[in-house]
């Protein structure tokens, strides 16, 4: 009886959220008094074992199969189901990312078992024995609402909500004993493989930029973004926008900050002419400092921001850019 953490990676490159879910899994294992095990899928990830030991993994199961060179939701799910069959874990935890949620949905569908997406580390009540229902808190609306839920399942399947657990090394590292295994893949795993793959060249992206200059409905037009572009460029950042902007066709969806767009993690987010509906806030709230520029002092984004300028963004944004240039001269 163990807690099994599915380690998300891309061709052996660890996804940061994987260490959050591994830490989540360790806290869970400690709570129910059992061992933490990890599973990596594909031989490209074999080199991760020692690192996972630092986070407390006692065993690192390693799925090896020729169809597992790249990510595959079916192949990954089949591998996890194989391990559930042989190891009978108490719980399986994955990262609350697109892939983590996708794989556990596939696992749950195979087992016809419940799967709870995006669980918070707080408020977990695991019960006295394996058959006890668990009570837990999960996020809805991208985190704008919490849900207390009860879970009845033999194997508890869940993902750890993103950025709600700090990835922390264990006080006592685990031995991370490698345990290679051959997963039983269904025929479908040969059909739903990745046929083509392109890695985009690294650069400043919306998700990783240290400065994001965001514009909303108040920008008024596609051309209205020119001063925002200028300010972003001055600060080595990128331009973002609200859903109203993409719905109007003013900018591409790849620039959209929000629940159905990108969640930013910038040092500074300028929210210009954005009212700040909850769906936008979900994407913006990861910024360490939010500066709102808005004509309406009562706008939701203004009340939640760290700093605000009450005024017309079409005048304020160029004035900020001018001031930066003046001080740099």
């Amino acid at each position, binding site marked *: 009886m163990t807690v099994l953490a599915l380690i998300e990676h*891309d061709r052996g490159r660890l*996804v940061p959220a994987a260490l959050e879910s591994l830490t989540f899994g360790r806290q869970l294992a400690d709570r129910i008094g059992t061992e933490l095990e990890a599973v990596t899928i594909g031989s490209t990830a074999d080199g991760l074992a020692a690192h996972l030991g630092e986070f407390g993994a006692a065993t690192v199961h390693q799925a090896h199969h020729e169809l597992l060179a790249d990510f595959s*939701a*079916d192949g990954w799910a089949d591998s996890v189901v194989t391990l559930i069959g042989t190891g009978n874990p108490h719980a399986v935890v994955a990262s609350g990312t697109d892939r983590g*949620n996708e794989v*556990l*949905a596939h696992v*749950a*569908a*195979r087992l016809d*078992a*419940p799967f*709870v*997406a995006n669980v918070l580390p707080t408020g977990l009540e695991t019960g006295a024995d394996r058959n006890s229902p668990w009570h837990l*808190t999960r996020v*809805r*609306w991208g985190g*704008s*609402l*919490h849900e*207390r*839920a*009860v*879970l009845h*399942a033999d194997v508890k399947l869940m993902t750890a909500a993103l950025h709600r657990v700090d990835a922390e090394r264990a006080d006592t590292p685990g031995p991370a004993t490698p345990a290679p295994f051959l997963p039983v893949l269904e025929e479908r795993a040969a*059909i739903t*493989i990745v*046929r*083509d*793959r392109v*890695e985009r060249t690294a650069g400043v992206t919306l998700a990783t930029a240290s400065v994001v200059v965001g514009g909303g409905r108040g920008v008024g037009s596609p051309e209205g973004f020119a001063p925002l572009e200028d300010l972003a460029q001055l*600060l080595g950042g990128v331009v973002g926008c609200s859903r109203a902007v*993409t*719905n109007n066709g003013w900018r*591409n*969806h790849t620039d959209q900050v929000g629940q*159905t*767009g990108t969640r930013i993690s910038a040092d*500074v987010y300028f929210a210009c002419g954005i009212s700040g*509906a*909850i*769906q936008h806030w979900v994407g913006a709230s990861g910024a360490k*400092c939010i*500066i709102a520029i808005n004509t309406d002092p009562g706008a*939701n984004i203004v*009340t939640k921001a*760290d*700093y*605000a*300028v*009450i*005024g*017309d963004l079409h*005048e*304020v944004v160029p*004035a900020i850019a001018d*001031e*930066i240039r003046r*001080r*740099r001269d």
Partner: protein
Amino acid sequence: MRVLICIKRVPAPGARINLTADGQAVDTTNLGFTMSPHEECALEAGLALVETHGGSATALTVGRPEAEEQLRYAASLGVTSVVLVPTDGNDWDPQRTARAITGAVEHLEAGADGSFDLIIFGNESADSGGFQVGVRVARALDRPVVTGAKGLTVDEDVASIRREIDGVQEVYELPLPAVVGVKEGINLPRYPTMKGRLTSRKATVDAINATGEAGGQAMVTLLSPPEVASHLVVLGDGVTAAPAVVDVLDELGLL
């Protein structure tokens, strides 16, 4: 080709979400309703495929009778038939929802029009965000599924799906019939025409009773997250605030 698009009626909250006194639901007293953003794009994707390849698009929802509003919106965009799987009023858990949709699909496919070539879901619902109903339905129907689609084309009997995760673009090719979960950004959804609005009022909403057995996850109550304490500092009005803004940037080491 025959396409089914599954949608969900959700509240359209503004600046905050209020709960009912018993904590069992979002207080929608002053709210409008919409469908999840990913599903608006699912509808657009389905309609575009039918325009290119011919055939028909059907929209289906599991929900209260009021969800007819979203079905009629789908009809106003050009969907040829709309199907309501009525619930008892409470939100169903993901397993139950998937079982009900599967039952409804089997019922629809037993009819004269035959099987759906493609069933399109939104990647996850805007409200509960369970990330699983489409995958479960695909499994129950024994069809391949890919989620997170940011591109979708059909050539003969193969659906080509493009998606992007952390800067890696992946392309999948699924033999039809298949299931796809799409994300906002795959397209820009159309708006209804006046003619579409008028005809949608007369559209017949087909009801299929498919209840589905409850699954192992149940909501106990909804909770508002703790309020983040406000630390707002107003730096000033208009252009006169610019030096104060740049002071903040300087403090943060961004100059």
